[in-house]
């Protein structure tokens, strides 16, 4: 790391959107919070007037692609991208090549993250060997490894076998782990290309019906409650899913859920031009679903915003729709999309944003040292965000190695100005430090 370890005095930032204060970051912690703090010797001052200070963001759902698809993203480029988006910790999904289904692979990813040091990289372990849905992977070994895996997921594939899912839920309990389910009934979605509805019928693309997600969520909530385990639902995308999770929580199921920024803003009508930049799994849904997801996130039915950052090389998208890869990059636009869809609409306060994007995901991932808010002697994981700095989204200008952003050409309302990981800036003045 360069010699920028601080200390730093952040002047005039508004913690959680409140009144301006100064924050002194020293030795990895927030040393002091107050008005008109004195500038000690050797301290660098960051003028943060008008900027909102939030605790470092935590992403529960990131695809870093390394090992195996370093042409799309690496732990380094993904870490830079995460930092640019205000994240201080990310959960790296297991669908790499080789799959992160052993202690060896998860430790490799974890070590890479540590060496790069721009963001805490917490690997997610596969639930089943090779994501094949047949045999449990060594969940205990991954949990006990240096990577201390707590989130297990076959993301990209659904653990569709009910018995296997039951066993995974039960087994992970011994390590305080959580199974994060990619809810997609496989038979109902064979060859599926987009949300099943008016648009798919018109475009002649095989549909991905909402029921294929909702049926699995309902089953898993019932299973989790039956065996008394924690369940996390990845990228909830339909109104029906929100209803089912709300019902499950009411009846005492220990379920948490995430929604992606793109599902909070975009609808399946974007597919009209067959541009695979809008191809993602689960697919973009309808306006009714978008509004229900926002409502679910606002009332706490959905616990967190997770990016499902899924980088793909250009050639995977510059092709026919049905041949194109599913997924969108999202780390660098997440906070601005949440501002647009949730804060500017009055659905969430900045304090609630801090909960949905920092505290709750850290809690679900059992991630110490993150999501603890901005308090004296707390960890100095801080993001400074300018909510009044509109930016025209351009995928090629992003830090991520890929450029497949569905927000291309849109204007988003704000930008991350600085990110501090344990008191050390990973982003300063809008650039990777």
């Amino acid at each position, binding site marked *: 790391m360069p010699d920028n370890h601080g200390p730093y005095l952040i002047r005039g930032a508004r913690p959680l959107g409140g009144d301006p204060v100064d924050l002194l970051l020293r030795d990895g912690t927030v040393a002091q919070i107050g008005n008109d703090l004195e500038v000690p010797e050797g301290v660098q001052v960051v003028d943060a007037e008008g900027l909102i200070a939030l605790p470092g963001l935590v992403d529960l759902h990131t695809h870093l692609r390394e090992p195996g698809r370093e042409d799309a993203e690496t732990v380094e480029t993904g870490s830079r991208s995460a930092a640019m988006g205000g994240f201080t910790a990310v959960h790296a999904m297991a669908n790499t090549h080789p799959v992160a289904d052993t202690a060896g692979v998860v430790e490799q990813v974890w070590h890479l993250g540590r060496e790069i040091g721009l963001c805490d990289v917490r690997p997610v372990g596969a639930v089943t060997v090779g994501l094949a849905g047949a045999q449990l992977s060594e969940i205990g070994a991954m949990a006990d490894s240096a990577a201390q895996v707590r989130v297990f997921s076959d993301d990209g594939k659904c653990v569709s076998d009910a018995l296997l899912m039951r066993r995974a839920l039960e087994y992970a309990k011994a390590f305080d782990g959580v199974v994060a389910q990619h809810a997609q009934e496989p038979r109902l979605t064979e060859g599926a290309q987009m949300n099943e*509805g008016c648009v798919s*019928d018109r475009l002649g*693309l*095989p549909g991905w019906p909402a029921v294929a997600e909702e049926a699995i969520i309902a089953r898993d909530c019932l299973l989790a409650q039956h065996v008394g385990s924690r369940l996390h639902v990845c990228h909830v995308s339909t109104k029906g899913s929100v209803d089912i999770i709300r019902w499950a929580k009411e009846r005492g199921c220990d379920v948490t859920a995430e929604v992606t920024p793109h599902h909070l803003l975009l609808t399946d009508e974007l597919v009209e031009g*067959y541009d695979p930049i809008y191809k993602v799994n689960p697919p973009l849904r309808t306006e009714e679903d978008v509004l229900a997801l926002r409502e679910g996130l606002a009332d706490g039915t959905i616990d967190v915003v997770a990016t499902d950052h899924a980088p793909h090389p250009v050639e995977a998208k*510059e092709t026919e729709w049905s041949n194109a890869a599913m997924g969108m990059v999202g780390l660098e636009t997440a906070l601005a999309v949440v501002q647009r869809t949730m804060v500017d609409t009055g659905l969430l306060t900045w304090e609630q944003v801090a909960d949905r994007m920092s505290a709750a995901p850290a809690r679900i991932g059992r991630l110490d040292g993150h999501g603890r808010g901005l308090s004296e002697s707390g960890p100095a994981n801080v993001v400074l965000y300018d909510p009044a700095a509109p930016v025209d989204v351009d995928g090629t200008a992003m830090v991520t190695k890929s450029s497949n952003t569905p927000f291309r050409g849109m204007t988003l309302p704000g930008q991350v100005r600085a990110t501090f990981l344990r008191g050390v800036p990973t982003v300063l003045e809008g650039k990777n430090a």
Partner: protein
Amino acid sequence: MRHLLSTGDLDRDQATLILDTATELAQVGDRSVKKLPTLRGRTVVNLFYEDSTRTRTSFELAAKRLSADVINFSAKGSSVSKGESLKDTALTLQAMGADGVVIRHSASGAAHRLSHWVDGSVLNAGDGTHEHPTQALLDAFTMRNRLGTLAGLRVAVVGDVLHSRVARSNVLLLTTLGAEVTLVAPPTLLPVSVGTWPCEVSYDLDAVLPKSDVVMMLRVQGERMNESFFPSVREYSRHYGLDGERLGRMPEHAIVMHPGPMVRGVEISAEVADSPRCTVTEQVANGVSLRMAVLYLLLGGS
């Protein structure tokens, strides 16, 4: 008009102009010299990723009758089968100076994608389960020739609507031209949102037949049975096949259409297929005139 990707892009005047132009060009087939100099010096590429001898031949003949240079670029034995992407193929055609590209592809939307990558005109000759605009236009042309008008015409489209690009293009075009379309199929072979389409839906062929001026039969692939779309070919045929008895229940003036290739004994009996009221071969002949009209309107001007 630069491309023909979907019949939904055509308004009534544009669609009528295509049909009127085809009417004039139909005479060319009866002349001693079956050729017009109109597209001399223009290059039309037939880019066929799916085998379709009849559609490719029809486009080829249409382009040649207009004196265009025609290049057939089929996926088999070309760079495409060696893994070249559609985009790279498009750029290759672009570099060769193709003025028009006729594309048949198994992926819905392939023609849309191609239109972003080439400067020339793109003609959708069938993309996946999306659309087949020239088929719908030649169907409308055939109906107009046989029955005089399209406005108010009652057209039943029967069969595998869910997987049919012909049905999609026909519903859009016929509605634009003022016909009343009824889709007839088992519920498994209809799109889930068919209720929002600008047409009627029925599961009962026998109820629809007496009220139809045109009955368009769609091909039903036997393999759909294995995907549980219907229990057996026999049962499908009993409910939705057109045989001589059902033909007798249609109004006397009513015609039977089929985009081909027909599966005799499944959706249509041999008796009906060979009946003078069945327009299958007429549709093929009309296809050339119609495609000449489209090629002329897309490539003939500035």
